[in-house]
């Protein structure tokens, strides 16, 4: 079963992933096995995804991130929360983010 995101927990990028900014795109490159399907498995994030990624500092919960982005985008918080949840569940499933924080 796919992991579920807890909206009040803390998440950080896995140390087994390198985030590279190339020509304005953020590319996530797995370092160790077990992330994605391994072969040619690079992930790119769109603009919203990147904004979420940048806030994954282990100090802000998904709910707090969504609230900040809703204010920045002048958007409805509920919609942004769904975007944050969707992306983080995808990243958690692939072990690109892990639960943890306080750093």
């Amino acid at each position: 079963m796919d992991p579920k995101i807890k909206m009040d927990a803390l998440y950080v990028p896995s140390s087994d992933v390198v985030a590279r900014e190339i020509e304005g795109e953020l590319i996530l490159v797995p370092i160790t096995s077990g992330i994605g399907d391994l072969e040619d498995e690079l992930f790119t994030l769109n603009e919203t995804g990147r904004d979420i990624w940048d806030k994954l500092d282990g100090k802000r919960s998904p709910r707090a991130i969504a609230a900040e982005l809703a204010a920045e985008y002048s958007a409805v918080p509920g919609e942004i929360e769904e975007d944050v949840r969707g992306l983080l569940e995808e990243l958690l499933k692939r072990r690109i983010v892990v639960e943890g924080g306080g750093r």
Partner: protein
Amino acid sequence: MWARKGPRLGRLDLELTERCNNNCIHCYINLPTNDEKARGRELSAEWIKSVLREAADLGCLTVRFTGGEPLLRPDFEEIYLAARNLGMGVVLFTNACLLTPALADLLKRVPPLRKIEVSVYGMKRASYERVSRAKGSFKAAWRGIRLLQERGIPFIVKGALLPPNREERPDFENWASTIPWMAGRPSYSMFYDLHCRRDRKKSRSIACLRLDPKEAVRELAGDARKREGLMEFVSKFSGARGNDLFTCGAGLGSACLDAYGTLYPCIMLRSPEVAYDLRNGSLKEALDGYFPRLRKIKASRPEYQARCARCFLKGLCEQCPARSWIEHGCLDSPVEYFCDVAHVLARELGLLGPGEKGWEVADGKKRVAGRTNPAKKRNPHGRADKECPGT
């Protein structure tokens, strides 16, 4: 991913050593394992890591480790991990002989993200070692391949069509088809580039191994599917190349660093005329300044201008500045062997009539279009329509 603009450096080829544990009869580069002079000149791991860091800053996502045999370097693991920790995928060209359980475990734990490319020289000890000229190499290679298989590390195999192993081709292909990461049949070396440092003795013996052009054409265009693929390719890359020397992608977002710190626009090219001393420069300067200047060089040799510059068969011909230099010591000379292969191939595809030369055809693109577009299909040499690959 790079629809608008690519990274400054898409791929870096790193030739970690020119030395090899094998001494293959067809190899264009290898030096003996114990060549102390070569070993002494090789770049240090620290220096290579600094190049990798600059490559990563320039957006490089893929590094190819080649040689010689890259696994000969005792610091291979350190260099490999440096590339992977910088977020690069690694293509490893190897004969697999020097793979150890520990290294295979590392490749499992920290995967290269690209398939390892293993060159296989024979299915039997006798054939393999007649090619590799290294006692024990057959057993070592198959042990290395087993280490990859046991761990499920993605790899593909490549062959070389050579007199000692040609009869084993069906066995090789049957076995290759069981490798889950193979996308179709294995690719083969068959044209064999002469020695890249212009070692005349080695070049002479390599030349003897090349397939006869007619035989090469049977390999390349032996059935309708192959001919169709070739015609599709030719339709994209036909037309005279003119006096521009570099009509390929050499130096455009890629580069090759040799084992001693000299950077070239392509993995094949070793001419001092196009060498960039990276020990006294930077990848950025080479990519932004030196390579673009090289790409403006024009061919000036009359023979090239009379033939290659006007020939519409560029999509079928392997002639390039690298091969010109390897064969003749200059960047702009026709290479007779590749010219012969291209012409035999063009006749097979119905693009040339008997005795006709590619540079004599004024409307080459039109002729190619006539053979590839069924709506405009023409038959310039009176061949039966059923032979046209487009049908």
